[in-house]
């Protein structure tokens, strides 16, 4: 017997269903396929762009390629400011399981590492509604690694960059600093923020499930790193200048002080320091007093340091010669009812002597022979009342009123430095006139190699004559003898200006100035010093500011490799030291 089933004759299989049912099923299946085909067509053809995009959104990422902020280096390529990676710690408070004892122990360690009181950390983590809280930003990279090692759930970190300033407070005012977002806030960091910042790039990539980059899509925009800036500052000169200034300000219980060192040939600023200063890396509790770059942003009446310009003009116009006799007796002179006096009666002086002894009466008598316009023109040409072209934020132009508004007594006071104002930087720059054969040269904070081309103010002969007077002023019988330094001939003018408080001059409040150059025959550097309110007994520029000048000149010329131009009694002692065998 056959075991096979006869489909046609099996009664079990004899269909009683109507034919339309099978046809219906076939139709339904066909319809189903049609639906699939339709969907496929829709996905592949009509909606293709949409689905492609959706896919990309899930896997493609745009990565930002951060640009490095440029370095700031000094004239010898030593770093003044550079960016280093830093860790910023943030948290999702709700994810931090504070009720667990082991987490609490870890949090205590974290607080210790962060140098943050426990309560402060608790307070930051208290707000559970927040999904993002900064704990502390810009920590040292090493510290960040230690914190990462604690492995606390809900505490994360982000890589940021922070600026480091190895030179610290000595160069703080020149270099400036950046904020947490890496934007310049002060000094060169602000002035050249655009060049330093660079431009971040970007690229689109496809990441896989584990977050690894598997493919780049589209174009990559490479980051443009910020440009490095080379300043004219010499960090060694800067440091010594700052140190000497600080010591002097502290020794004389002064309020503040500034010093500027200028290369007499190129107009480059070799140093510019102010005290009080600040450490750029630690900027908590900063006061405006510390922040101010006084040498550039504060203007004062220069006092006697102005006299060489008045005398220079008189020499230039042929009204006097260096040996012309000026009678300063009896130490007083009256101009339209106001009396101008000297500290002593200097008697009969030569023009040279007027500068050497710093006689107000003598200077006034010479100035009154000249028209106000000529004085104004000379002062303006030397940069007074003009905005310094130095590209430094906040550099101020000082005040020099138009000559038409000068009253005779004002012309007289201006001739010896009252009634006009200038910054210490302007003062230093104006002295390039005497150092450079009568030409005032533009000053710069960026390194150059070229000798600056100046604008003539005086003839070379006048400049030489005034320089000789400056040498006398810093020499025996002059007001600035303490400016003398070992081995190098110097010349310069001291100034002691009464401070103006409100509308009148305060008694007992002075500003001590000294501006000069060295070596005097062929000046290489110009140094200007200002000390504000010395209040330890002495206040004369020749006593307070000149010693700083002396030491700064000594160190700077030595570091520049300038050979002494004056005979020095050598103190080289050839000690015979027994060499051990």
């Amino acid at each position: 017997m056959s075991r096979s089933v006869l489909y046609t004759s099996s009664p079990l299989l004899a269909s009683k269903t109507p034919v339309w049912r099978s046809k219906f099923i076939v139709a339904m299946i066909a319809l189903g396929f049609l639906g699939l085909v339709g969907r496929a067509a829709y996905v592949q053809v009509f909606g293709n762009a949409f689905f492609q995009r959706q896919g990309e959104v899930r896997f493609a990422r745009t990565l930002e390629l951060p640009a490095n902020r440029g370095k700031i280096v000094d004239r010898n390529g030593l770093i003044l400011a550079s960016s280093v990676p830093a860790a910023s710690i943030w948290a999702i408070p709700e994810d931090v399981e504070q009720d667990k004892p082991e987490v609490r122990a870890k949090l205590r360690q974290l607080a210790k590492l962060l140098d943050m009181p426990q309560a402060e950390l608790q307070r930051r983590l208290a707000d559970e509604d927040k999904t993002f809280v900064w704990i502390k930003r810009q920590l040292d990279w090493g510290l960040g690694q230690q914190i990462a090692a604690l492995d606390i759930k809900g505490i994360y970190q982000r890589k940021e960059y922070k600026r480091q300033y190895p030179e610290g407070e000595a160069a703080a005012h020149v270099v400036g600093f950046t904020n947490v977002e890496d934007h310049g806030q002060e000094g060169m960091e602000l002035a050249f923020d655009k060049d330093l910042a660079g431009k971040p790039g970007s690229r689109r990539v496809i990441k896989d499930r584990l977050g690894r980059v598997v493919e780049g899509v589209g174009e990559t925009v490479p980051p443009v790193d910020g440009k490095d800036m080379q300043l004219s500052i010499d960090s060694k000169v800067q440091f010594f200048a700052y140190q000497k200034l600080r010591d002097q300000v502290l020794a004389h219980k002064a309020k503040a002080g500034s010093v500027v060192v200028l290369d007499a040939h190129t107009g480059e600023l070799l140093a510019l320091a102010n005290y009080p200063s600040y450490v750029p890396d630690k900027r908590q509790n900063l006061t405006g007093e510390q922040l101010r770059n006084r040498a550039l942003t504060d203007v004062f009446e220069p006092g006697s340091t102005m006299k060489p310009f008045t005398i220079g003009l008189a020499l230039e116009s042929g009204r006097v010669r260096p040996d012309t006799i000026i009678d300063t007796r009896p130490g007083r002179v009256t101009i339209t009812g106001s009396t101008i006096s000297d500290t002593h009666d200097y008697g009969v002086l030569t023009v040279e002597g007027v500068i050497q002894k710093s006689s107000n009466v003598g200077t006034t008598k010479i100035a009154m022979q000249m028209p106000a316009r000529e004085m104004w023109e000379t002062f303006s040409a030397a940069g007074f009342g003009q905005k310094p072209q130095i590209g430094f934020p906040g550099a101020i132009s000082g005040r020099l009123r138009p000559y038409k508004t000068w009253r005779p007594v004002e012309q007289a006071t201006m001739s010896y430095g009252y009634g006009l104002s200038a910054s210490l930087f302007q003062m230093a720059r104006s002295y390039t006139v005497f150092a450079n054969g009568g030409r005032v040269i533009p000053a710069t904070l960026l390194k150059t190699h070229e000798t600056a081309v100046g604008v003539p103010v005086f003839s070379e002969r006048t400049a030489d004559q005034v320089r000789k007077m400056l040498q006398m002023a810093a020499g025996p019988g002059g007001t600035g003898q303490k400016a003398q330094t070992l081995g190098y001939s110097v010349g310069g003018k001291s100034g002691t200006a009464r401070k103006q408080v409100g509308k009148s001059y305060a008694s007992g409040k002075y500003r001590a100035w000294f501006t000069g150059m060295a070596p005097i025959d062929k000046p290489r550097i110009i140094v200007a010093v200002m000390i504000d309110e010395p209040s330890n007994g002495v206040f004369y520029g020749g006593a307070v500011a000149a010693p700083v000048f002396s030491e700064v000149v000594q160190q700077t010329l030595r570091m520049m490799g300038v050979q002494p131009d004056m005979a020095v009694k050598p103190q080289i002692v050839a000690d015979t030291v027994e060499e051990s065998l």
Partner: protein
Amino acid sequence: MVRLNIMLLVAVLASALYLVHTQYESRRLFTELDRATVEARRLETEHQRLEVEKRAQATPLRVEKLAQGKLNMRTATPAITQYVADPQGERKP
């Protein structure tokens, strides 16, 4: 005819498999390149960090402190300096 078709099919399959392989290889290399780039960047920042640290260890303040304190040195003055002429002629500083 059939043989040609089979040959073509095999060729298509082989090419398809090779494509898969190439794609895989290119992704692998890309990841490697990416990792190397990240590493290069990390090393560069590390270099910069060390450079700054080196500089911080050699600031004039520190040098002076060590020179005076540890090595008993003092600042040179012209009085204790012997100047010698450079036979090559005057060198520009």
